[in-house]
């Protein structure tokens, strides 16, 4: 457990060693606000809630989260530092979890920095702050889901740019798994239970359920299992390919 914390701290500090972290935070905040006010029509709706803000998170995350996760392992392999890390007395699992938690903490920081919107909406009206909190939790879980996929993408290659693009593609598949776009491809031949299974794998269904303010245990289990599975896959891939 201590090792996980040590690895997480190092990784988190290293985000801020390059301008990447600041650029990411800036772009995230600008886009999140732009989407909320222009696409979401925050003022025009005349309602004191943050729905226009949260509605666009999945699409914003789709491009920004793989940028956070792309360097996690690709950079370690490119620079060779993975050989140092993996020959210190730490387990692969501690390293995978520590790095994932660092990336997660970083995205949580980005979400925390959107607090002016929350202040604004509270100043303008009296929103349901419980629902807003639930939606934030939904966003945090969605980010974790994307990050676990991005972590696997990063483990597959030595090139962060490749990890970024593969990460976006994989995240997109999971994001729209509940959409007709994907389901129709299965409907023609697959039995109904399989269509339902694929549909329920989609991020959006679970994210929207939580954003509506309903935190269902099943949605939490969904995210927990999905993240665990992708982190396990990351560890397996690294075990096989770390020295290549």
């Amino acid at each position, binding site marked *: 457990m201590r090792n996980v914390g040590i690895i997480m701290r*190092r990784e988190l*500090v290293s985000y801020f*060693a390059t301008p990447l972290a600041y650029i990411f935070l800036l772009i995230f905040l600008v886009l999140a606000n732009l989407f909320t006010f222009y696409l979401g029509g925050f003022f025009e709706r005349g309602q004191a809630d943050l729905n226009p803000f949260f509605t666009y998170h999945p699409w914003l995350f789709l491009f920004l989260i793989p940028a956070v996760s792309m360097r996690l392992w690709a950079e370690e392999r490119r620079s060779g*530092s993975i*050989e*140092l890390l*993996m*020959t210190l*007395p*730490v387990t692969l699992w501690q390293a995978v979890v520590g790095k994932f938690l660092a990336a997660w903490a970083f995205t949580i920081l980005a979400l925390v920095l959107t607090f002016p919107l929350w202040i604004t909406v509270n100043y303008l009206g009296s929103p349901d702050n419980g629902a807003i909190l639930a939606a934030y939790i939904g966003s945090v879980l969605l980010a974790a889901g994307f990050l676990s996929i991005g972590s696997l993408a990063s483990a597959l290659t030595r090139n962060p740019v490749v990890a970024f693009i593969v990460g976006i593609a994989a995240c997109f598949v999971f994001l729209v798994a509940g959409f007709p776009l994907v389901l129709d491809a299965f409907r023609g031949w697959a039995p109904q239970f399989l269509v339902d299974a694929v549909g329920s794998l989609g991020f959006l269904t679970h994210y929207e359920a939580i954003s509506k303010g309903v935190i269902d245990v099943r949605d939490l289990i969904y995210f927990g299992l999905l993240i665990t599975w992708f982190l396990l896959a990351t560890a397996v891939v690294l075990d096989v390919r770390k020295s290549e």
Partner: protein
Amino acid sequence: MIKTEALTKQYGDLTAVDAVSFTVSPGEVLGFLGPNGAGKTTTMRMLAGFIGATSGRASICGHDVDTDSIAARACLGYLPEGAPAYGEMTVRDFLNFVADLRHLRGAARARVEAVIERLQLHGVLTQTIETLSKGFRRRVGLAQAIMHDPPVLILDEPTDGLDPNQKHEVRTLINEMAGEKTVIISTHILEEVDAVCTRAIIIAHGRIVADDTPQGLAARLPSGRLDDVFRSITA
């Protein structure tokens, strides 16, 4: 103590390391020699637990590197080839990071300062590692390998890329530390073997082709020169 039994690594059809068996006891400094691509680095990586063996076994201080990997690594100081590190970290942060993962506390923690002193890293503590010269980078790699005073040291080309003065310093350091430690260094600089090693193994095409003292090896040819022997064995 380091022990390998028929340690083998295959990549597809290529056998990088072929049934290598040897034992290195405390007090011995083993020079691992061989042409590039002979399997030196692969063998060291298996000992350090970075890659798994295809077959055979290896242990460090009695801990199997595969089944008891964490305990084996705790006994080991390892300098990977090229001394990789986190380029964006300062030397101080990097050494603290390794010390944290090695769980050095209290009196043991003071060794970090001693190692900084020993390797003369004072002047670069606040510099990021990517801005360092090759010589300093190598010294940072050595500092991280010896800071926990490990009973076993495995150094992959510790003097590669250093100038003659720095080479001399690193050799002195290895000689001073040797004492009761078990040390393996890989090199293709043969004078180094004379300078620091009590024993030399020459490896070619993944197999051990000679295992002797440096003097014993040199005496194999009338010229008495180690590099003639090296060439005659590995060519």
